[in-house]
């Protein structure tokens, strides 16, 4: 069984350290994803394993033998490399290129045998390139050529397969097929595959171990769950991302969020009434704008609940498929009453969450500015036999602002907040007639918005 042990490897270009103290143990059947931002040393690591760049310090053991002490041809029989750059300037046919992969197994003067042809055919079928066999390789598309090169590597019948960004030129079906192929080789034939992959989701789906590099050092190593966490991604890639488990593929998947704008925090609390995912985007946007958010009531399986947890927003939660209890309802109402504003999304209302709307109504009567996003008319989302619709009418009568499109909300909310600030200051600072004038200017303009 093949094994690869990397111990304390340090690589340099001239006097610049590219990799420092990298250690890793890989056993047969492992599909290692080498991850990291640009410039973190991923390609350099592969090159040190493929013997293109001798480490300044440290050892690499292939089956307990020092990799660098072996002969070229010995290594070529066991290790194959798919490089990043796939240009070929001579007009060899695809089959000829793949047959070159048989070189380590041939004597100096031996022509390729039947067996070699069989191997070539097999790997070309696996990579879906057999139909390109007689085509000159420099006339193929980037993706076709990439697959031919992968076939060549496979033709070496290697025990270790090193791949440097092998999916760059491939369309989605070929990406999946190649990853499937490598995975199956690991599982069925016990080979080791080490791939530098930029697509975290593909890595998460197919690799069973991962190595996360940052600035030339190993930041994390181990199973996918251990390595691919939000914190790691945030630290290394400087991107906020949610890491979830995909129920269908049963693998982790990462949702990167756009880099946060840094807004100064506003001293303003907004309570969000949402559910079924309608509030996720809003939560992020409003949080970015600097508001302190609360949410409720959400059931713990709800997407919005996950988002709120991720964004550290305090949530009043309820068990799934259960009606809202009095305790929960009252906690929710407390939050609403303490907030400066309430936002209600276009969430469908049923008997399960009608109480949220009732609480909001109570809060409006207390004077809390309420915004209701009305993208879908309430009749469509009313599953309470008209009670929700009626509540909506009441809310309108009491000054709730209805918005047609969710995208308009942030601007409105910001304007309202600015007004509120001005008002606060006006009451303490502006003297005399100015105070009167500002009071007039700041009359609520809800006449206009009622329609």
């Amino acid at each position: 069984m093949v094994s690869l042990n990397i111990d304390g490897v340090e690589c340099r270009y001239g006097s610049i350290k590219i990799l420092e103290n990298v250690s890793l143990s890989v056993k047969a059947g492992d599909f290692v994803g080498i991850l990291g931002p640009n410039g973190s040393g991923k390609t350099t690591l592969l090159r040190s394993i493929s013997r293109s760049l001798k480490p300044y310090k440290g050892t690499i053991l292939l089956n307990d033998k020092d990799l660098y002490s072996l002969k070229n041809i010995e290594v070529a029989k066991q290790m194959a490399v798919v490089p990043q750059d796939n240009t070929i300037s001579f007009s060899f046919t695809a089959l000829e290129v793949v047959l070159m992969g048989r070189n380590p197994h041939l004597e100096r003067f031996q022509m390729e045998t039947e067996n070699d042809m069989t191997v070539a055919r097999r790997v070309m079928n696996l990579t879906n390139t057999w139909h390109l066999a007689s085509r000159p390789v420099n006339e193929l598309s980037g993706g076709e050529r990439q697959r031919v090169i992968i076939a060549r590597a496979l033709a070496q019948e290697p025990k270790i397969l090193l791949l440097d960004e092998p999916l760059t030129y491939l369309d989605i079906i070929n990406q999946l097929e190649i990853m499937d192929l490598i995975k199956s080789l690991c599982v069925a034939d016990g080979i080791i595959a080490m791939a530098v992959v930029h697509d975290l989701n593909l890595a998460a789906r197919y690799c069973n171990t991962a190595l996360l590099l940052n600035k030339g050092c190993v930041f994390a190593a181990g199973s996918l769950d251990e390595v691919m966490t939000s914190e790691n991604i945030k630290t290394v890639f400087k991107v906020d991302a949610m890491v979830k488990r995909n129920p269908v593929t049963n693998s982790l998947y990462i949702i990167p969020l756009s880099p946060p704008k840094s807004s100064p925090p506003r001293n303003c609390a907004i309570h969000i009434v949402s559910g079924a995912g309608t509030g996720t985007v809003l939560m992020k946007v409003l949080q970015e704008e600097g508001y302190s958010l609360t949410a409720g009531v959400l059931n713990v399986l709800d997407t919005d609940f996950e988002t709120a947890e991720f964004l550290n927003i305090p949530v009043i939660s309820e068990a799934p498929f259960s009606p809202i209890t009095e305790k929960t309802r009252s906690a929710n109402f407390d939050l609403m009453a303490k907030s400066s504003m309430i936002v209600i999304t276009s969430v469908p209302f049923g008997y399960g969450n009608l109480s949220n709307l009732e609480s909001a109504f109570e809060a409006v009567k207390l004077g809390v500015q309420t915004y209701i996003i009305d993208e879908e008319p309430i009749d469509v989302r009313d599953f309470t036999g008209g009670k929700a619709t009626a509540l909506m009418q009441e809310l309108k009568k009491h000054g709730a602002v209805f918005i047609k499109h969710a995208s308009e909300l942030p601007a409105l909310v910001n304007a309202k907040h600015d007004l509120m600030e001005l008002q606060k200051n006006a009451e303490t600072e502006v003297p005399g007639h100015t105070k009167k004038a500002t009071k007039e200017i700041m009359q609520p303009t809800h006449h206009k918005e009622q329609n």
Partner: protein
Amino acid sequence: MSDGKIEGIYANRSSRWKIILVALVLALFLTLIVSLNIGYASISFSQILAILGKQIPFLSGSINSASISPSSQAIIILIRLPRVLAAALVGAGLAAAGVIYQGIFRNPMADSYLLGASAGASVGYSIAVLYVSSALTIVGLGIAQTFAFIFALLTVFLVLFISRVGHRIPITTLLLSGVVVNIFLLAMETLMELHSGQALTGIIAWLAGGFSDIVWLQVWAVMPFVIIGIAITFFFTRDLNMLSMGDETAQHLGVNTEKVRQLLLVIASLMTAAAVAISGVIGFVGLIIPHMTRLAIGPDHRILLPASAVVGAMFLVICDAVARVATGASELPVGVITALVGTPFFIYLLRRRKTTYSL
């Protein structure tokens, strides 16, 4: 294309190659014989064959040599035959060197003179003509040609040496060093030509390339370099296939890249230096013959190398024959003929290919 058909093509590849080579070698022999017929003196084919036959020990008894004049015999054996053989050897050597350079540099503009062999040879030749007594001979070879050979080699090794980085010789550095050394040596050469006085005619004529003064000794001198050089390179043609895909790729496929590359460069340089020493600087052969052969036969060096050598030999024998008879009793430099003959043919081949041309 059906699977069986594809595999069929590849299975028969090696026999197809053998047939191609045999056909080419036969064509070369024919070209040699025909070329022996060409020249100022008219000597018929039967006479040529008779003269040649007399050279072979066991045949000579049975050949009637009455009708052969001693001057015809002398012309064939002492003047034309060495000349034609030299042309063949030089053509083969330059073409083979061209194949090696193009494969190693992965560059269509590479030719045998890239690393300065021609510039070094011309400087060596000029130095010998101008400053060394022409009465000296080394192993019977003219001093000027020996100097040409030595300086050609020295130049190439100089270029290799200045491009070294540790144990490796990176290709870009090699190319640049070659360019710089070439420019420097050409400047030296120009300087010497300006001060050469009467010897200028001779130097210029030699530089233009030709086989007009070839003697048997020179043929024996060049033969081992070319024959052994091509033979050794043949061992490494599969490696050359892989080297032509890239150094790292070749290494990953099991080739000792650095060693093989340096060995092949040395061989190519020796062949080029030997060729230039006896024939002057004949351009075009090392650059275009590998191309033409590749267009016709494909890039696999296992057939490309021997085929290019044979095609190069034929080509130069033909060009030399044309140089001999083109203008009555006087001669044209072979380098002019190679360009005039080769260029249109190459353009024709290029246009014939429907797809865009790349190596």
